[in-house]
């Protein structure tokens, strides 16, 4: 008996081991033969293996379930499938191939497959890093305020030279360089941030050999990178120091990266810093110190203090009145609706909080002694009833006419086609809505008292999948 049991156990183990060893050879799962699309499936495949095959080959789960039940004929999504057992473990699931009736009847034009292509807008790149320092081996980029002058040495025999990059949506025509004594030059006004670029010399894409900063261009080459600066760290009073660095929250307090340069008795480091508030310190010959020229310091929670500075315009959230309130908080999507963090300061006629926000669209509310209220001084509201704020809006939606409308909404790709998110306000004969839009294409519509319409003042529109039209708007980088 014991021997028989041992033999059975060995047999079951062999079976289970054999079953576990059935691999899915994806190259042999699907083929087309004699006008039929045929899947060769194996009854020994595990549930995860069956699921993976179904996912790869777009097979409906109910279809797969019926197939493994070996139903001879299965109708799925209007198509007739057949199963056929071909040996002990394997069977075929097949359907007629090459007859897509719906497609045959259309006057075909363009087809697209679902894809993984991710468009990278230039604003995403511009603010994609929190800081940046250029690494040119020659002085070919000169910045004065937001104006940059690019210089391409040599190329005296070239007939046409352009610079193309994320700053001009990679236009090959819009930014020509001008010949000068020793090369080619161009000046551009840019916002602070990170940019990628190449030169185009007589039609040929050319990298900047004097720039060490580069990134893969995803096409087997690379783009050069530069930063448009917006800040300069300066440390005075340590002329005899040998090595000075700056470190901060923007570079995760890296202690060896950002070395400052001795300049006219001071130590300086110009760089790009993303808008917002940054903590920082200097490291002078190994000794950490706050910025003696900056009085704003805050504790770091470890018994020390850091210097603090803000990049960008300071906004003032203000709330008039409520003089008897004990505590007023600003809470919004810019601080993940934190209900404690941003306490406002009491003023002679209300409450106020200075705050730095990057350009963008935000919503917020005040919390007065625990009670949430919208900003009474701000007429723009979101559909969910919060106050709406657009910092440095780069576009104003405008709809003339309809003065008697009760509710006018602008909806589009910029707000995921929210039907109540962006309520326009009526001022001076028109409906308005300010918004900060990323560079690129935006489609939108107005909803006037529930009625959808394209922008009557915009002659750019396109068909949509619902058989109606959307207005089209392009925002330049």
């Amino acid at each position, binding site marked *: 008996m014991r021997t028989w049991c041992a033999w059975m156990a060995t047999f079951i183990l062999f079976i289970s081991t054999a079953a576990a060893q059935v691999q899915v050879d994806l190259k042999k799962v*699907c083929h087309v033969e004699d006008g039929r699309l045929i899947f060769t499936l194996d009854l020994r495949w595990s549930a995860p293996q069956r699921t993976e095959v179904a996912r790869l080959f777009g097979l409906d789960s109910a279809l797969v379930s019926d197939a493994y039940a070996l139903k001879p004929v299965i109708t799925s999504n209007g198509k007739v499938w057949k199963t056929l057992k071909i040996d002990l473990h394997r069977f075929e699931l097949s359907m007629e191939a*090459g007859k897509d009736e719906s497609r045959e009847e259309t006057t075909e*034009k363009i*087809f*697209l497959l679902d894809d993984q292509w991710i468009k990278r807008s230039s604003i995403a790149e511009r603010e994609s890093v929190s800081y940046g320092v250029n690494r040119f081996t020659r002085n070919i980029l000169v910045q004065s305020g937001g104006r940059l002058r690019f210089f391409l040495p040599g190329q005296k025999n070239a007939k046409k030279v352009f610079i193309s990059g994320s700053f001009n949506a990679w236009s090959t025509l819009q930014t020509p360089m001008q010949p000068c004594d020793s090369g080619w030059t161009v000046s551009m006004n840019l916002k602070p941030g990170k940019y990628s670029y190449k030169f185009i010399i007589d039609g040929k894409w050319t990298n900047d050999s004097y720039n060490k900063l580069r990134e893969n261009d995803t096409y087997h080459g690379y783009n050069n990178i530069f930063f448009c600066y917006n800040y300069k760290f300066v440390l005075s009073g340590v002329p005899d120091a040998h090595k000075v660095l700056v470190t901060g929250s923007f570079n995760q307090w890296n202690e060896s990266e950002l070395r400052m340069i001795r300049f006219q008795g001071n130590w300086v480091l110009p760089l790009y810093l993303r808008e917002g508030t940054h903590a920082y310190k200097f490291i002078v010959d190994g000794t950490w110190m706050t910025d003696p020229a900056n009085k704003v310091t805050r504790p770091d929670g470890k018994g020390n203090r850091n210097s603090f500075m803000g990049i960008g315009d300071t906004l003032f959230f203000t709330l008039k009145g409520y003089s008897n309130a004990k505590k007023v908080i600003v809470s919004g999507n810019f601080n993940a609706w934190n209900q404690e963090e941003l306490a406002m300061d009491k003023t002679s006629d209300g409450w106020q909080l200075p705050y730095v926000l990057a350009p963008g669209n935000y919503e917020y509310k005040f919390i007065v002694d625990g009670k949430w209220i919208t900003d009474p001084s701000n007429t723009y509201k979101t559909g969910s009833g919060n106050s709406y704020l657009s910092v440095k809006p780069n576009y104003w939606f405008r709809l003339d006419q309809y003065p008697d409308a009760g509710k006018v909404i602008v909806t589009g790709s910029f707000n995921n086609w929210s039907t109540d998110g962006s309520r326009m306000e009526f001022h001076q004969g028109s409906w308005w809505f300010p918004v900060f839009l990323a560079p690129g294409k935006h*489609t939108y519509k107005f909803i006037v008292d529930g009625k959808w319409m394209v922008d009557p003042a915009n002659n750019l529109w396109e068909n949509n*999948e619902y058989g109606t039209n959307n207005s089209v708007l392009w925002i330049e980088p």
Partner: protein
Amino acid sequence: MSLLMCPARISAKPAPGYLVPGMLECVSISGKPINDLQGNTVGVTIPLKRAGRLFLLEGTIDNMIGNFILDTGASGLVLNQTYFRNAIAVDDEEAGGVTGSTASVERINVKRLLISDLVYTNMPADVTPLGHLENRRGVKILGLFGMSLLKNLEMVIDLRNNELQIFRLDRTGNRLGPPSPVVKYDIIQKIGEFHSIMFVKATIGGKVLDFCLDTGAESNVLSITAHKNVLGTVTITRRSGLNGVGQDRGEVLFGTLNEFSMGNRQMVPMETILCSLTAMSRKYGCPIDGMLGYDFFAKGKIYINLVKKEMGICLKPEENK
């Protein structure tokens, strides 16, 4: 890349009176004959941009700057209705292509199209919706730059360097001007032309097939109704839905061509999709076995001489084993 895009198979008939480089009417930016450009330059290099697997040329059309998809699968100039809706139509025509929704097509006259140093004036163009291409690729697309715009020229597509070279030709198809540096092409193949669409023969599974040369196709395409010897050489790796213009759904199979030869040279492996090309064949008025798109053009430097009716491929070193 899992995206396939075969921009418009517009059934534009070759129209008389339009101007192409090399003809007397062609003028440079400065208004001089193109022969006077840059010291009698007879060739021009145009930087190509990429949007996914599409090749874009930047140009100016009636004072508007934007991108054109280089699309040898389109017969002529096709413009995006979004930006040319108000142009005065001179004709109406029905759109054609592979799959998707019916779209009306108007024909207009374009006063001036400038692509680098190539200038076209008073030429016909079809106008049709292309907004969905913009939405999927995130770039402004003014239109499609089709085959008839390259007539009487030689073009060299060099994806490694992202550039398109255009050369003017004499009547026998030889480049004008001083001799160009000699390039050794690994494959030289005759091309056929039908309704301004280029066809080339290639062999799969011992069968000779007719492929449309289509720079606007983001993938090669093989007809799902091809001979069993052909399909037997294809490894199918996955199956996916297909989005049409009007949200039509179709299905395609993704696979690998394990046998593909042209001019006795194997060019494998190459990715492809398999789908029905019945409708496209009907539209073109001739049977099509497949299309050679991005995966084919990425194999090396490819010239297409539309006077000699031939193409050549200089395979990339890694392909040339």
